[in-house]
């Protein structure tokens, strides 16, 4: 019986271009929007240089940097104190600190450290500029030592200003996953159930020998599968295209995705109990899922800086826990020792919502 339900559900999905577009177009669009919108090629970025050496090589490096076209000199700094000032108000995006006796050290074959300090509040720009600067420095080094040894003589030392742990860049892939998964899972399930209510087929199925849990499973399983495919897709794009690290266990990662998707699906079923039309379902899921996920999960705005009340709301948003777990796994390589808390919360939420949705979706009413 369940098989028939699932086959039917897949037919609906495959035959509806709109569903397909939401299912596979939206994740890609979101990733591209969030991932690349701000990281297109940057030219003539204002930078400042603090040159402690003022020798031939330091000038040569500077001229190489400014002739690249990516940077222009906004300021010359005299001392370390001025670094912070120059970043203020976004006057410069990057500061390069060249150590004393640069030419001499290089000639002696010593390691020298060039500091690359980046304004990481605008994280995408910051990273792009940092990458430009590093490759110019490497290029410079190869010119002066064409037979370069495998190790680097000039070591660019990168320091991030304002956002030292690069919080938002690593929040963004988990954030988009959280958003896309909740939208697909909650919205599509609630909309398809509402559609069956509109058609009257829900009533016919309701009074068939099928039990409530069959009906719910028949709706949820296809979307569970599709959501997991989506989750994998987003994470792979995150890793391969957007440079998200993957230090943890893939299985644990997928398990977190599964828990989170279950929460979202069960929520979708719950929405559909209330919503009698597809529009209503769409509206409720957008309002109750998408907005809180974007605004309150810490995906875009840091939770720490929110007022106390909003922080409390953030604690009941499933995405908060999902993002926390995903970041731990991917960045810190965390196992269950690190993420047992968010995992437990998600598992609890999933169980609760599934039980609630089975209870609520009645095949008969008073």
């Amino acid at each position, binding site marked *: *019986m369940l*098989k*028939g*339900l699932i*086959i*039917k559900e897949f*037919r*609906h999905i495959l*035959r*509806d271009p709109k569903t397909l577009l939401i299912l596979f177009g939206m994740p890609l669009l979101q990733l591209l929007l969030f991932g690349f919108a701000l990281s297109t090629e940057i030219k003539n970025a204002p930078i400042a240089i603090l040159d402690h050496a003022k020798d031939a090589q330091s000038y040569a490096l500077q001229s190489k940097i400014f002739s690249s076209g990516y940077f222009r000199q906004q300021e010359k700094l005299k001392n370390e104190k001025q670094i912070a000032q120059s970043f203020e108000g976004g006057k410069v995006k990057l500061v390069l600190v060249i150590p004393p006796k640069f030419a001499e050290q290089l000639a002696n074959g010593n390691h020298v450290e060039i500091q690359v300090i980046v304004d990481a509040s605008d994280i995408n720009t910051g990273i792009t500029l940092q990458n430009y600067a590093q490759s110019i420095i490497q290029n410079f080094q190869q010119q002066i030592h064409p037979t370069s040894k495998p190790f680097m003589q000039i070591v660019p030392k990168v320091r991030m200003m304002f956002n030292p742990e690069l919080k938002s860049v690593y929040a963004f892939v988990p954030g988009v996953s959280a958003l896309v998964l909740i939208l697909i899972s909650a919205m599509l399930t609630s909309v398809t159930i509402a559609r069956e209510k509109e*058609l*009257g*087929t829900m*009533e*016919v*199925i*309701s*009074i*068939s*020998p*099928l039990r409530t849990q069959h009906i719910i499973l028949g709706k949820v399983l296809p979307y569970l599968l599709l959501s997991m495919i989506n989750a994998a897709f987003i994470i792979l794009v995150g890793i391969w295209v957007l440079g998200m690290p993957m230090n943890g266990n893939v299985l644990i990662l997928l398990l977190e995705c599964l828990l989170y998707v279950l929460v979202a699906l069960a929520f979708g079923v719950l929405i559909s109990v209330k919503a009698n039309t597809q529009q209503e379902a769409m509206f409720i899921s957008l309002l109750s899922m998408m907005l809180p996920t974007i605004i309150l999960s810490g995906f875009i705005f840091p939770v720490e800086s929110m007022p106390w009340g909003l922080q409390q709301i953030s604690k009941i948003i499933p995405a908060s826990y999902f993002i926390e777990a995903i970041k731990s796994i991917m960045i810190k390589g965390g196992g269950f020792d690190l993420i047992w808390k968010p995992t437990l919360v998600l598992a609890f939420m999933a169980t609760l919502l599934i039980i609630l949705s089975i209870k609520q979706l009645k*095949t*008969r*009413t*008073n």
Partner: protein
Amino acid sequence: MSAIAVNGISKNFGEIQAVKPMSFSVKEGELFGLIGPDGAGKTTLIKILVTVLKPDSGFATIDHHDVVKDYHYIRNIIGYMPGKFALYQDLSIEENMKFFADVFGTKLEDNLELMGDIYKQIEPFKKRRAGQLSGGMKQKLALCCALIHRPKILILDEPTTGVDAVSRKEFWNMLQHIRTQGISILVSTPYMDEAAKCDRIALMQDGSIIALDTPQAIRDSFTYPIFGIRGANNYHLIEKMKSFPHLRSIYPSGEFAHLVMNQEITLQEIEDFAAKSGEKLIESKLIKADIEDCFIEMMQHG
């Protein structure tokens, strides 16, 4: 033996009494019609019987099982066709049928003989999606889906609403055929002219049954003399005839006006009165009340 027995069933929605306490039964093998306008309570009553809605009071049995307690049994033995044709528009005829067969744990092939002619009419289009079918075809497909598990009792909510006259006729023929296969049928309709196709009918109005009998017996129970009259201008004729002595009621009915009298009267008296009022009568005849006349009589004076 009753296929369906209703005992004092009622249902309120807030302040609205959708179904006032009512009782009736449908005999085994009977084609029983619930006939009444929108808002009469037909759909609510049917939803209670098919176990999707719990009644506020009373009890009802289907195949001797309680609709509240034994709903699971009932769901296995009834075929139900809700008001709108509940079909998946994006699935083909064949896919819809296979799906419903699967839901009821049966196979399409096992019950083709019951659907017989009905299925044959839609079979040539079996690859076509339900959304692209005409109203009549959708109706047939929905009926096939409701019959797919060979139910003991078939319950249909306004199956002929929104369907053209030809399809309506065909549909009633199909119901007659299904009944000969030993399936009891409860069907609702707002069309009074469909009453004649039923073995017995319940006329419903404002949540109550106002008459319950065979269509013939209901018509026979209309005891007032009733005439069909037709003039050059029926509107003027009706206005003038309103002052006719001993008049019970007069109203348009198609190309005629129906004139109901409180006492016996001759055609001559009618013609004389019309002539005196300056209206030309083209035709006047004593007629037999139809179901609509009975319904109107009960609404006005019942």
